[in-house]
């Protein structure tokens, strides 16, 4: 494996959980709901994914559990914000707080145990191709799933009728309701999809990325995922670009350090965040581009008139 390829794979591993969580949140926000609880749902996915994989010995069961728990946990948020129309920002933050607490409680007995790892795939001949074989054909299955997810969500949102319906709910819930669309039901489904994705992303951390459980192991990645959605102006392929850009800068600064370039490590560590801001400024300069994509009803509560 060449150095360049190894670096690419490292970047892909760093970007995959961000991508998955962000794609989920993108669907949620496209339906007009802002769920700031990504970090909480992710960490819940991480702890259950780890635990189930450990107990059952099967990483796949772990992923399944992570997805389920993420979706169930998001239901709490959905009930409060959609049925009881509570403030979405505050409820999302509360969800994060609850997730960090509950995952810590659940995970107490998992501390210090090596987890079950989901390995990389191997396809004879293809994986052994020089230069790109391992990057294209030799990564973990979830990496491929994340790409598939990005593509399908893009297709779903912009090429199907159901996707159009979801976007119309996010753009103007009142007129969508007037057309007979069940706004609340669609938003429930979108929130649960977002929860499932966040759960999967958490499971990726504790089953593939670093197969172990440590408290707060998401370490702010849920927030980065949230930022990526805005960064991508709610377009799936731009989320992918953003996640890989963020991953590349993160890994790049570590390499810069290992090369000993003598710049303060704090400055290097802050590069991914600064880069995100700079790119965002460049993108948002184009008003037409961003205004078209922003879901107009984002964060606004909806109560059907009766």
């Amino acid at each position, binding site marked *: 494996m060449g150095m360049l390829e190894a670096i690419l794979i490292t970047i892909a591993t760093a970007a995959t959980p961000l991508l998955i969580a962000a794609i989920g949140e993108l669907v949620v926000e496209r339906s007009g709901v802002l769920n700031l609880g990504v970090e909480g749902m992710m960490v819940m996915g991480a702890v259950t994914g780890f635990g189930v994989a450990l107990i059952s010995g099967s990483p796949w069961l772990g992923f399944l559990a992570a997805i389920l728990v993420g979706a169930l946990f998001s239901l709490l948020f959905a009930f409060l914000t959609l049925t*009881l129309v509570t403030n979405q*920002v505050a409820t999302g933050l509360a969800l994060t707080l609850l997730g*960090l607490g509950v995952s810590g*409680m659940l995970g107490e007995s998992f501390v210090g145990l090596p987890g079950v790892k989901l390995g990389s795939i191997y396809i004879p001949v293809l994986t052994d191709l020089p230069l790109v074989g391992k990057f294209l054909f030799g990564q973990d299955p979830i990496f491929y799933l994340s790409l598939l997810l990005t593509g399908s969500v893009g297709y779903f949102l912009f090429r199907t009728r159901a996707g159009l319906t979801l976007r119309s709910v996010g753009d103007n819930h009142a007129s969508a309701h007037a057309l007979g669309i069940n706004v609340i039901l669609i938003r429930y489904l979108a929130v649960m999809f977002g929860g499932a994705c966040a759960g999967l992303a958490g499971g990726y951390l504790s089953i593939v990325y670093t197969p172990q459980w440590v408290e707060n192991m998401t370490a702010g990645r849920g927030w980065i995922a949230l930022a990526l959605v805005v960064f991508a102006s709610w377009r799936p392929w731009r989320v992918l670009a953003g996640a890989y850009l963020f991953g590349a800068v993160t890994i790049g600064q570590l390499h810069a350090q290992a090369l000993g370039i003598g710049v303060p490590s704090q400055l290097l560590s*802050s590069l991914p965040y600064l880069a995100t801001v700079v790119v965002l400024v460049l993108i*948002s300069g184009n008003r037409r581009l961003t205004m078209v994509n922003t879901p107009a009803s984002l964060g606004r509560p909806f109560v059907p008139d009766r």
Partner: protein
Amino acid sequence: MRIELVKRPQRSALFSALSPFIALALTLVAGAIMFSLLGKNPLDALYYYFIDPLREVWSLHELAVKAAPLILIAIGLSVCFLSNNWNIGAEGQFIMGAVAGSILPVMYPDFQSWVVLPLMLIMGMAGGAAYAAVPALLKTRFNTNEILTSLMLVYVAQLFLDWMVRGPWRNPQGMNFPETRNFHEYAILPEIWASSGRAHWGFIFALVAAVAVWFMLSKTLRGYEVKVLGQSPRAGRFAGFSSAKMVFFAFVVSGALAGLAGISEVSGAIGQLRPTISPGYGFTAIIVAFLGRLNPLGIVAAGLVLALSYLGGEAAQISIGVSDKVARAFQGLLLFFVLGADTLIHYRIRFVATGSRKLEASHGNA
């Protein structure tokens, strides 16, 4: 069965007053269940959470110490949120306020005079305001989403502080540990009532800010502008209000208050700059702002309640061995119930049997 909300013609004064108590009752019940499941006596646990920290004077002081930054930041955020500006980066503004306010005692330790402290407070506010002006500028000039920029700047501020205290500002007598020199006596924010505990003037600032912002919001044209632009930018523009100016106003006010909180915490409670000066006050304050229903006076109460839950969490951890994760989960529950109960203020809740709608429909067809 479905749950249906029916909007009340106007907000219910009854539930406005009652909802905090409903939330508290629900939290107590849910907490009792949770503690029983963990094998703890629920009454003991609730006692340590809510009563024990209020029993002693020193502990009340600690409550004020913990609540002061939460309240100060949350009051500023309420102006932001009411005007529809989503400042998520108060944590960064808190840190930058603390750094800017510490310039005098750290770089000019020999300049000792009574003017130092007022200057520090002003510089702290300026530092926080300037840092908050960055997302405001990007939003108005480049149409950049402020949630993202303000959040990213938090990480940058944390790393900047880290670099300062390990590099240029490191205490020359500090054995090369990452901290600045200790502030001299003129740079210390005094205690309110030193003989009984360590609550400092930061708490007074919080109360003053609460009253001032409450007055601004409810009695002045500027406050009206905040709310109009927040609810409908279009209507605001027709009224001749500038939303770009409002973005700056909201961010600068909240940045200045976060900066004041930062320098008060450093000069009042810590006495020097360290790599970490905030356990996430800027984020917790967002919750406080909403718990207080974005009303400055409500925020004072909300800040005290949240501070109490931290102190109570510690008391429970020591006395009956409830881990701090339980404390965090408990806080999450409390928030859910408070938010949920507030729904009753604006809506009546109706439980509808699933069959009835069909009945209605068939009736309509007939």
